[in-house]
């Protein structure tokens, strides 16, 4: 058990490491977990149908056979569009509900800083990460917060793109603001989606394929990560958690002493 909290990650003993590896701490609230998978499913459905909607040679992504299959499954592209819009609307509504009930929490400065704020450690991390992959450095990565810099970059992209995708989707669906705007909405919609897809590939790889981040994947199901992983990969967050734990223990001890003193006093 570590009683004093180091300022930066120190080497651990085998026992320390094992203890920490077996101890789970909470990383994600269940609401976040649900939203994540809901979002993932929506994106899957929307990408499959969205790409299946675009047929103009200047714009299309998918090959003819794909367009035919998607059109066939839905019995006509008009139904593909209807489905795409319906799912999109549900997606917007769910996010809106989250927004309505949670904006006070989600838009707190510290929460945002946590998710998308890049500090010096983050910048260094980004630089070193790329060099590491290229085998050009042997330095270790700087300590990271709850989300590492890569995750923060992705979050930034998604936070920017999702409102754009939602708004442009609505503009196209309801023909808001006139034809000129609808035309641009279409292009912005494709661009934003495309950018997210590029980030998505990294996200899915890191989450599902890259072995070092396996605990991260499971945390998106259980909401928990093991302490060792947190210590190694999200040290600054581990520190916060530890400090809170110690502070909590202190409070308990103080409270207990009070109670004992009261009892003995009588």
């Amino acid at each position, binding site marked *: 058990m570590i009683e004093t909290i180091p300022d930066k990650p120190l*080497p*651990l003993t085998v026992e320390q*490491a094992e203890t920490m*590896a077996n101890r789970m701490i909470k990383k994600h609230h269940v609401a976040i977990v649900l939203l994540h998978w809901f979002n993932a499913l929506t994106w899957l459905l929307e990408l499959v149908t969205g790409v299946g*909607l*675009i*047929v*103009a*040679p*200047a*714009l299309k992504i998918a090959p003819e056979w794909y367009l035919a299959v998607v059109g066939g499954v839905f019995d006509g*592209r*008009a139904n593909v*569009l*209807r489905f795409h819009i319906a799912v999109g609307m549900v997606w917007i509504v769910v996010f809106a509900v989250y927004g309505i009930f949670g904006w006070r929490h989600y838009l707190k400065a510290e929460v945002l800083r946590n998710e998308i704020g890049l500090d010096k450690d983050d910048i260094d991390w980004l630089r070193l990460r790329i060099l590491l*992959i*290229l*085998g050009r450095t042997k330095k270790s990565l700087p300590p990271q917060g709850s989300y590492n810099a890569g995750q923060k970059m992705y979050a930034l992209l998604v936070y920017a793109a999702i409102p754009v995708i939602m708004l442009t989707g609505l503009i*196209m*669906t*309801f*023909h808001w603001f*006139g*034809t*000129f705007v*609808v*035309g*641009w909405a*279409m*292009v912005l919609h*494709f*661009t934003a989606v*495309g*950018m997210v*897809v*590029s*980030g998505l*590939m*990294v996200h899915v*790889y890191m989450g599902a*394929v*890259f*072995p*070092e981040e*396996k605990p991260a994947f499971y945390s998106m199901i259980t909401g928990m990560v093991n302490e*060792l992983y947190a210590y*190694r990969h999200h040290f600054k967050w581990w520190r916060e958690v530890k400090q809170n734990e110690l502070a909590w223990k202190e409070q308990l001890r103080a409270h207990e002493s009070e109670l004992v003193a009261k009892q003995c006093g009588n």
Partner: protein
Amino acid sequence: MARYAMVIDQERCVGCHSCAVACRSEWDVPVGFARTRVQQTGVQGTMPECSAVFHVAQCNQCERPSCIPVCPTGATWQEPNGIVRINKELCIGCGSCVAACPYGARYINADKGKADKCDFCSDRLTQGLEPACVATCPGKAKIFGDLEDPKSNVFNLVYREGARRIETAQTAIGPNVFYAGKEEHLKMASIAFPPGRSRTIAAVSVWGAVAKKLVMLAVGATFLGQAVAFFHQLRTGEHQFEE
């Protein structure tokens, strides 16, 4: 199979707009827009040698429509009978087809947010009726029929009596609305109302020039990045925990 076409007899046409209003009534075309337009060259020449002609224009259901390939959702297509149709359920009203038509035959219905244009009253045809404009024209200046039927009036006018398309060297997409009448009047109309150029909306131009490339680059780069990372991972093995 029929191939529908229309011939406008410029000598019979008096520019009374009956066709335009009947069309508006039949298809709920909102005020400010039109499926069928009646234009005039205005009086030209010097007194007393003057001339003027009316020019009725609508979708030409072209042989090689420039509006069909630009529709993102494929909402517009051409029937075997030549009529170019719009599926309103697939149309998002982006305006690409409106810009693509060199004859300016399309418009976006502001109330519905969908593209619209003349379709030779396709729904009326299936009921055995003439297009509304043809039926109402007091001067009988609009002649409609099957260009592949040698007994039809349009066949006669087009193939035997010189009814003409209005095209330019730059834009010759085979419109199936022909114009009949005095040579002088045909010439005036061709000069005053030639087809323009098929255009692309600014958004799609930007997509083609910049955005698409950007997206392809990003997706390609990340894909490559992932591939490199994956191989690196295979090479260096798994690092679950530090020793």
